[in-house]
């Protein structure tokens, strides 16, 4: 067998390999480097210019009493505590979050966010989001976080970067993770990494959906690679939807401006006949109910044939008198009062709201499930660690606002410390050349096939099916239909090919070809998990099982690979101090007020 260096174009050897460079990955790399490890960060885009952290909208949760102590922000409430934060997080997650992990999360949030602020991330204000009993959202814009963390990475000589690199698979030897392999698509090189320990911080799989607030990279690569390596995943049936994003025009597709309007003004949600369908769901709060109920209600209209021309439903503000709309500027957030969203002037894209409604759809916003980890971010594979979005057990069935960023800051460092210790103890791993050769062949296969399926069409089909049938509402017959349709898609993914095979340098279609398998793995997990969970909970509503079943379903669904098939089992939810309701009750009755 040839040496690894002869199999791939480049071999990089390091103590700790971190996959992903933003909120979680940067923190993991910093922690590992500060413990004395050599660290290599491989990231799919450019550092500070990719990933979900940057796009965050952007509250970071810490309990209010700790905020008062560490940040002295106006509005922080001394009666709050890490314990109360813990209770809210477990309750809003519909009681299937791992309480041992949630305790750590709430205890360590303050000190870790303090470090971020000390590194220069600018705090704007404190916000009070739904689901929290106290104001807990320390507002720091995503680009501020990215800037502060990038600076810390660059200040540490022990951290090296490999950008524009999609890690496709993990390398294993003797049951231990010893590295990874991937494509540096900027020059078309296959790169192998030999490491003492590997940390996956590659985020969620929101790009599986037609409408999503997430950036392009988020195609579930880390979770899918972990799965293929034999890692366990959990809670994969709970992708989180944000109701009411823009559909048209295309420039602002998936922007959640209508949702933000609906949070501040009395928006009416309507179907294509102009019926206010929220009356069927929550007579009192209507569109002011929780995000999940809004998403569910909207998708039921679409699936029952009452959606608009773009498969959406409508948000209308037409009934609000002009002077009330004018006065709204006095209490809307400043950017919204100026009709701004990021760098967009929304006036150019919205219809005349005194006359017309906005057609909207639910968009995938966050990935609640992922790789199953311990409190030290260990997976079931020695040497393999995971942290941040794309790990499971923290948010249970649903995440409260502001907790995605807290997750990056708390769990990135924990993973970094644990991986550095493992690498120090066990030394650098050595890859199995035969495995590396097989995985290299898989990477270059789409460039070697003279014909085959088109990766762009394939992902569009995946996104269409996911939007309709794996949205907030699910039903057995639709889920079974997805599994049926997936067989053909899996065949296509097996023969996916890149049209210009001579183009090695920055060939975007090559990257898409490698993502196809990952998207399908995610799709299968969501579908199979949803079929198994015969109840409605958190971000998932089963139309054919509309109750939350506290008798039979205080459980997590755990997934892993067995040969070539996905196997599922259940594990009881980890409960430490907060006892869940152990009865069956109507879905959404336990929801907190928005």
């Amino acid at each position, binding site marked *: 067998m040839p040496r690894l260096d002869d199999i791939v174009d480049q071999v990089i050897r390091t103590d700790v390999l971190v996959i992903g460079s933003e909120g979680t990955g940067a923190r993991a790399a910093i922690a590992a480097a500060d413990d004395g490890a050599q660290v290599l960060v491989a990231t799919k885009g*450019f550092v500070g210019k990719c990933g979900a952290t940057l*796009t965050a909208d952007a509250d970071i949760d810490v309990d209010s009493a700790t905020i008062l102590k560490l940040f002295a922000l106006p509005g922080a409430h001394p009666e709050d505590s890490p314990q109360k934060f813990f209770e809210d997080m477990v309750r809003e997650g519909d009681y299937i979050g791992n309480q041992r992990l949630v305790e750590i999360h709430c205890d360590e949030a303050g000190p870790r966010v303090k470090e971020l602020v000390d590194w220069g991330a600018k705090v704007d204000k404190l916000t009070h989001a739904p689901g929290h009993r106290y104001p807990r959202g320390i507002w720091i814009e995503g680009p501020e976080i990215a800037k502060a963390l990038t600076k810390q990475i660059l200040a540490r000589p022990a951290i090296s970067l490999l950008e*524009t690199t999609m890690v496709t698979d993990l390398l294993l030897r003797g049951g231990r993770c010893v590295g990874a392999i991937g494509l540096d698509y900027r020059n078309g090189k296959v790169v192998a990494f030999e490491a003492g320990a590997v940390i996956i911080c590659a985020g969620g799989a929101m790009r599986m959906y037609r409408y999503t607030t997430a950036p392009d990279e988020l195609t579930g690569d880390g979770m899918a690679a972990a799965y293929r390596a034999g890692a366990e995943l959990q809670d994969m049936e709970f992708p989180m939807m944000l109701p009411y994003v823009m559909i048209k025009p295309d*420039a602002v597709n998936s922007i959640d401006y209508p949702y933000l309007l609906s949070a501040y003004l009395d928006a009416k949600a309507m179907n294509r006949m102009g019926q206010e369908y929220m009356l069927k769901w929550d007579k009192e709060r209507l569109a002011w109910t929780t995000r999940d109920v809004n998403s569910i209600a909207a998708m039921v209209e679409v699936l029952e044939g009452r959606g608009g021309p773009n498969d959406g439903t409508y948000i209308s503000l037409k009934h609000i008198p002009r002077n009330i709309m004018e006065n709204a500027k006095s209490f809307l957030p400043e950017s919204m009062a100026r009709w701004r969203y990021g*760098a967009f002037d929304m006036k150019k894209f919205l219809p005349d709201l005194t006359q017309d409604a906005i057609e909207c759809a639910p968009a995938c916003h966050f990935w609640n499930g992922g790789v199953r980890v311990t409190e030290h971010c260990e997976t079931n594979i020695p040497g393999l660690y995971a942290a941040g979005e794309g790990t499971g057990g923290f948010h249970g069935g649903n995440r409260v606002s502001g907790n995605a960023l807290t997750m990056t800051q708390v769990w990135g460092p924990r993973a970094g410390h644990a991986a550095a210790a493992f690498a120090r103890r066990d030394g650098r791993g050595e890859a199995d050349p035969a495995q590396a050769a097989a995985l290299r062949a898989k990477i270059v296969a789409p460039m070697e096939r003279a014909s085959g399926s088109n990766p762009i069409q394939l992902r569009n089909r995946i996104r269409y099916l996911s939007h309709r049938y794996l949205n907030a509402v699910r039903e057995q017959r639709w889920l079974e239909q997805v599994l049926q349709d997936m067989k053909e898609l899996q065949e296509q993914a097996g023969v996916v090919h890149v049209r210009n095979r001579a183009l090695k340098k920055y060939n975007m279609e090559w990257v898409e070809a490698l993502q196809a398998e990952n998207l399908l793995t995610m799709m299968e997990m969501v579908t199979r998990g949803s079929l198994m969970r015969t109840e409605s909970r958190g971000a998932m509503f089963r139309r054919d099982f509309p109750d939350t079943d506290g008798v039979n379903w205080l459980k997590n669904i755990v997934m892993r690979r067995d040969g070539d098939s996905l196997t599922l089992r259940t594990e009881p939810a980890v409960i430490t101090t907060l006892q869940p309701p152990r009865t069956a009750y109507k879905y959404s009755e336990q929801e907190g007020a928005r």
Partner: protein
Amino acid sequence: MADTTYTVRVARFDPERDAAPHYDSYPVPIQEGWSILNVLTYIYEELDPTVAFYGPCRIGKCVACHVKVNGKTRLACTELASPQEMTLDPMTQRGLIRDFVIDRSRVHEPEE
């Protein structure tokens, strides 16, 4: 989808292989409310998958999708495309990887 198409001239350049940039022209059915990023995405998905650009966030936050639209540097994601002929060039030739992609990497080569 409207049938009217507009000619979009796209600068193509791989500094490692080409002596000089050249333009490829594509007929694009530019719709009202399309951004320049929508135009590039249409070309990539429907006409020519070899066109290279970068701009993952799509909402003006990564600030990495600069394109010269008829000579003026703009963010591709937030700049509206007028339904008319246009010429697209990279922001700069310095550090150009290919077409519109500028090398924004912080550290070029990792240590062995």
